[in-house]
């Protein structure tokens, strides 16, 4: 099908976007890479009266390192995140996950801000931002505010963004290559949304600072596997402990997956992916 008619604006600054949003409110949608919104419009599942195209807002497309943080502008394409030397050095888990998003053509257009605002529970970036406690910075009529990623996602395709706000950048902790990292996902075909995804960051010094295990694809939003994190918190690392932690990820997935018809299967896949992710992450700590 073809998308329903709409009025089109192509602002060139964040301020202009904010005033357009203030003017049009809930009738307006922001158009980023269009890889989720345009299919919804073509299927007539979304029919915004106004589209505000962010592709001309140059200040939103950037990758910077600022202090201990890696800053990714909302209009940065997945391809740029996946191939950036800076991202690979500062936050390799993010680079690894971005390379798994969709297909090459999707990564050429799709954006950081678009994926997070769309909030598909099975998407890679919501899972990584939740795992790494990234800060999501949004701009609105009252200025800017920063939202911790775990509080940003409110459910299936739902965030805490107000209709008058737009996501402008994401700030990731720049741990560098110190900790081991790994992003494992399972989908029926390369490029599809993950049935389950597991992100792991494992501190290289054996401590618990920076230890993080996140799961996507199970439940209405990504979540931290805190039971498994607890098992690894004291810094001990051995096969038995990793096995127990992987089982804990699986058990927690069964709880979160309540309502999925294939809940047991997802729990099993989550445990298997966690075991693999631990092995890869451990190898990358160089220990």
């Amino acid at each position, binding site marked *: *099908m*073809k*998308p*329903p*008619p*709409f*009025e*089109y604006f*192509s602002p060139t600054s964040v301020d202009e976007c904010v005033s357009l949003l203030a003017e049009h409110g809930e009738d307006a949608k922001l*158009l980023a890479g*269009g*890889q989720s919104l*345009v*299919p919804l419009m*073509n*299927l007539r599942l979304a029919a915004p*009266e106004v*589209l505000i*195209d962010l*592709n001309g807002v140059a200040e939103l497309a950037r990758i910077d390192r600022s202090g201990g943080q890696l800053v990714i502008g909302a209009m940065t394409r997945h*391809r740029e995140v996946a191939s950036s030397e800076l991202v690979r050095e500062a936050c390799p888990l993010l680079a690894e996950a971005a390379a798994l998003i*969709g*297909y*090459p*053509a*999707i990564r*050429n*257009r799709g954006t950081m801000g678009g994926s997070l605002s769309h909030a598909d529970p099975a998407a890679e970036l919501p899972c990584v931002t939740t795992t790494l406690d990234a800060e999501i910075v949004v701009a609105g009529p009252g200025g800017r505010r920063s939202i911790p990623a775990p509080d940003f996602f409110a459910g299936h395709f739902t965030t805490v963004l107000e209709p008058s706000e737009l996501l402008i950048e994401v700030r990731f902790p720049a741990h560098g290559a110190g900790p081991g990292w790994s992003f494992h996902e399972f989908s029926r*075909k*390369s*490029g599809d949304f993950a049935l389950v995804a597991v992100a792991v960051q494992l501190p290289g010094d054996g401590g618990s600072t920076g230890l993080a295990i996140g799961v996507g694809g199970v439940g209405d939003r990504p979540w931290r596997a805190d039971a498994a994190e607890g098992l690894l918190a004291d810094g001990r690392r051995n096969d038995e402990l990793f096995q127990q932690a992987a089982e804990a990820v699986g058990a927690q997935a069964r709880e979160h997956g309540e309502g999925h018809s294939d809940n047991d299967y997802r729990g099993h896949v989550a445990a298997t992916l966690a075991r693999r992710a631990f092995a890869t992450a451990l190898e990358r700590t160089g220990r």
Partner: protein
Amino acid sequence: MNQHHEVTLNVNGREHTVSVPPRKLLVDCLREDLRLTGTHVGCEQGVCGACTIIMNGQNVRSCLMFAVQADGANIETIESLASGPDDLHVVQQAFVDCHGLQCGFCTPGMVLAAKSFLEQNPSPTDDEIREAIAGNICRCTGYTFIVDAIRTAAERMAGEEAGQHV
């Protein structure tokens, strides 16, 4: 809402100015306004890859963009690859030689996805080839001959580069 926008597109080396409503998809603009019907419309939801074009050097889905967004862009469609049947692009010739198509519906998108992939990765493994065309669906071939075609094209391009005939 139905207000038209004037849009200038550089398609296959020629500049075109068209007047489009914002809702017009780029693929429909190429097919209807410019009569370049080599770009196919399959699913219209970004899944099948039949509408793949190359915009500013990168392959994109032309069903997931509005024509108005492509103002000023450089676009290559399948029509740019060959002037006629005796002058096929190396990727197209490899698809012919390896039986990389049957009905042909996916072929324009498949060929352009392969072309832009080989420009970035001139000596791919079979796994990399499969990954590169994961977003292009073919319901005839079972993909094996398409992978053969892309591998063959890569070998021929490497041979040309080295000044040999393969």
